């Protein structure tokens, strides 16, 4: 459980998180990045860049 850096809502994850994983805040739907898994810290996910893709 951690606080959403966007809306300060409580983010609860159903599976063990992993660093660099992208999760979603169920309150504000913001995309968040798991910065550290233990303790769980979250940051707004990076914006999509021009050269991202497959």
């Amino acid at each position, binding site marked *: 459980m951690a606080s959403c850096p966007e809306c300060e809502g409580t983010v609860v994850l159903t599976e063990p998180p*992993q*660093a*660099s*994983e*992208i999760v979603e805040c169920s309150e504000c739907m913001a995309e968040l*990045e*798991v910065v550290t898994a233990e303790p769980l810290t979250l940051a707004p*996910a*990076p914006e999509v*860049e*021009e*050269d*991202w*893709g*497959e």
Partner: protein
Amino acid sequence: MTAVRVAVFASRVRADEKRIMEALGRHGLRYEHVDTRAYWSFAGEPRPPWSIVLNREIAHTRAVYAARMLEALGGTVVNSAAATETCGDKWRTSLALRAAGLPTPRTALGLTPDAALAALEAIGYPAVVKPLVGSWGRLVTRVQDGHMAATVMEYLDVLPAPQSRIVYVQELVDKPGRDIRVIVVGGEAVGATYRHGDQWRTNVARGAESRPCPLTADLAGLAVRAAAAVGADVAGVDLVESGDGELFVLEVNHGVEFSGFQRAVGDRVDVAGRIAGHVAALAERAAAATDAPDAGDAAPAAWAGA
């Protein structure tokens, strides 16, 4: 046997990366996730601790440099830097496909927007303008006629990046509301899906829906040859059917995303498992070379460029 260490390079761990890492674990491989945003190395420094690196970096520029850095140290990177560079550049992909004699739509490169306009006149309308680098169908533009093309070129002409003004143009293949994705791993086609969409761009990232597609010998053969043409061990090959059923290779993706594909094919294909299996095979080869009596204290084969 020597334990071979594997790294998964990725700045963004999506469901696909999690599935791959779980599958690596099931293969008994010791792996670690390396966040590319924190990775650096000196030029010419001793080899890093991983025998095999699976490059799942989402940012193309960073993926290419990561692969180049690791290969400079003598490593095996999947996909290779050369394959990543080729797949990430649509023009280089087109050249590789043509050189391999594979069917691909008529394509031209204009070295200025004005030159591209002339190329479009030669190709005929409707046609497609694509950014050289980019994915998910982003900025891919269907131009209906010369008026529209001239306006698109005006926009391109004022973009700040010099590469944006090198313009890739292609004939439009009148596809039946879908294209085909074939995933190739280690020289073998593992499955295929149709990608249906309401828009003319049928990228899953743009909302297209993946549905099962029979993996015919024609599809499999073409996809395997396309992956080989760009040198990709792991590839998502995009094909399109023309109105008369002819198949064309559109592009080859080096960092294949497969969540939609996996949902469509269900249990019949385990994409992450196949990728992990390929990495495991490479790791076994590296370990065997390290354990060979004459290997001494030399680098594992993977790092010796074997």
